[in-house]
């Protein structure tokens, strides 16, 4: 009874954290592929359709029966290929959905205290957030940036793009546009951060908090939440653009694997890093005598 309960709760927890289970699922998916077929790798898919090994050579005599056999064989092979392509497509969709689910967390009912969690999820170590995160997850422009650097480093990916040069140009344009969108969101976020002291009424020396203070906090957080949703939409769009619009199936799969791989790597070493560093600390006596020596430098330059 209790065992069953435990199992159920395990199940539930793994379902509720799609981002954590990504790697496992990916690993499993790879295994499945190997089981199903030895011909699966994408290069061979192309080869097979072009030069069939059993195709009759010119000048060779062959009987009608052999031809029929060959045709049947060809039919079976292409049917199998079609199934494989379909299953690859399904897997890509599944993986994409997983990311979409992760990116649309903010669409779920969000309590005021959840806003901080969306911005700085505790499941991600601080270093992971510092390296990759903007408003809680990947920068949309970084998703395309990763794609762009993958093209440059991987010749197979580059050569498979029909118009590599044009694509590269289109991606640069997209990155540029996304950065503008990010800057707009940054600007709005900054407006909230710069004015919170005026909008949240602490300045009056009131001893006990009243309802209006909390209302004010919540209304500011509502604005932040709106920006998080905006950011998540850009993120989802960026990923969909790469996977669905720019890349063909096999390359999309390759990209998703790399995308997930980087996240996993960063997550791992950030976790190790945090374990190694421990909580951040300062010297017990931090020499307040030297405080103030260096003030007035940077602003002075501009004023």
């Amino acid at each position: 009874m209790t065992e069953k309960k435990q199992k159920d709760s395990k199940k539930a927890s793994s379902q509720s954290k799609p981002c954590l289970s990504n790697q496992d699922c990916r690993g499993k998916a790879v295994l499945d592929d190997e089981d199903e077929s030895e011909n699966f790798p994408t290069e061979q898919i192309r080869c097979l359709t072009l030069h069939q090994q059993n195709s009759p050579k010119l000048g060779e005599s062959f009987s009608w029966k052999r031809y029929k056999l060959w045709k049947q064989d060809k039919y079976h092979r292409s049917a199998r290929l079609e199934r494989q392509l379909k299953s690859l497509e399904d897997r890509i969709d599944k993986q994409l959905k997983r990311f979409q689910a992760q990116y649309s967390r903010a669409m779920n009912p969000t309590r005021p205290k959840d806003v901080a969690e969306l911005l700085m999820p505790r499941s991600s170590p601080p270093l992971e957030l510092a390296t990759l995160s903007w408003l809680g997850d990947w920068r949309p422009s970084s998703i395309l940036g990763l794609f762009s650097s993958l093209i440059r480093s991987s010749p197979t990916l580059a050569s498979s793009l029909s118009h590599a040069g044009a694509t590269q140009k289109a991606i640069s344009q997209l990155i540029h546009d996304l950065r503008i969108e990010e800057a707009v969101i940054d600007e709005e976020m900054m407006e909230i951060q710069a004015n919170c002291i005026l909008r949240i009424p602490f300045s009056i020396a009131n001893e006990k908090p009243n309802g209006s203070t909390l209302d004010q906090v919540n209304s500011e957080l509502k604005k932040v939440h709106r920006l998080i949703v905006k950011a998540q939409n850009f993120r989802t769009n960026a990923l969909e653009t790469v996977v669905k619009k720019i890349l063909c199936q096999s390359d999309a799969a390759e990209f998703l694997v790399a995308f997930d791989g980087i996240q996993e790597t960063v997550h791992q070493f950030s976790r190790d890093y945090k374990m190694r560093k421990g909580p951040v600390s300062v010297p017990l006596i931090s020499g307040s005598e030297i405080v103030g020596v260096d003030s007035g430098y940077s602003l002075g330059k501009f004023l």
Partner: protein
Amino acid sequence: MIKSLSRKKPTGRRRFRDYYAIWIETLKTIHLPILRHHMSCATSTSSPNLLSAHVEILHHHFKSYYHNLDLAASTDVSQILFPVEHRNAMELPFLWLGDLHPYLFTNLLRSYLLQHDDSFSLQEPENEDEEYDYQEHQEQEIEEEDEEEIEVGESCEFLKKQWPLMNAWKIQSRKLTTRIDQIERGLRLMVPALMNRARRAQAGFVQKVGSGEVSAAVAAAEMEEEMVGIVMDANRLRKDVISEIVSVTTVYQAALFLEGLAQFLVGIRDGKLLQEFRSCKSPIN
């Protein structure tokens, strides 16, 4: 300087979380009440010198915080950028690069001036003083920055005779607004530059790892180094803006400014409010 300091004290560290808790507690239970006490007395009987001394103490309290924030950032910048350990869920969304946004300081100051601007227009204009300020401002504008600072003692004498605390924002408002304009112009250059640096550091990381140039760990170390610089520059900006404001305002203005700032920091950590906040179930979307 930081290195030589840490060499002197190789042992004896405490978690930044504890440091910040104590810092806030000192602000809440010692500095803020004393400041308020002197503010309420200064207008009538007690000497403004006491107030000015306490403004300095409070200012120093802020400076020492930023000094420690720098030390902490050089230990592990990621925990300062994402301070989930020492800041609560109500504060976190309002933080920029690990602490208050520098615009917040100038905005707070502006709000005092604006508040007063309204009531000022209703009253009779204080021509004499305004003219005096304006001239002084004109004379000093070309001169060295340091000389533009107000002699705290001098202005106190002046204030003691003529101005109660509640009128603090009437005085030298033109000179002050010019100065805030300058500070804000500086910030408008430097804040976006810092944001860009942070963005480029992250983009650089993805690019390096994506292209396989270096391992993720090496790329992260490089990015971390850049982030330490960014956070320290942001801290310097915050510290400088506070110092500029304290130096350019009169002692009463500085006292009101620091009081407002301290009250915000203390208020957003208020236990009861936080409890209400945490138990708030109604979704905001």
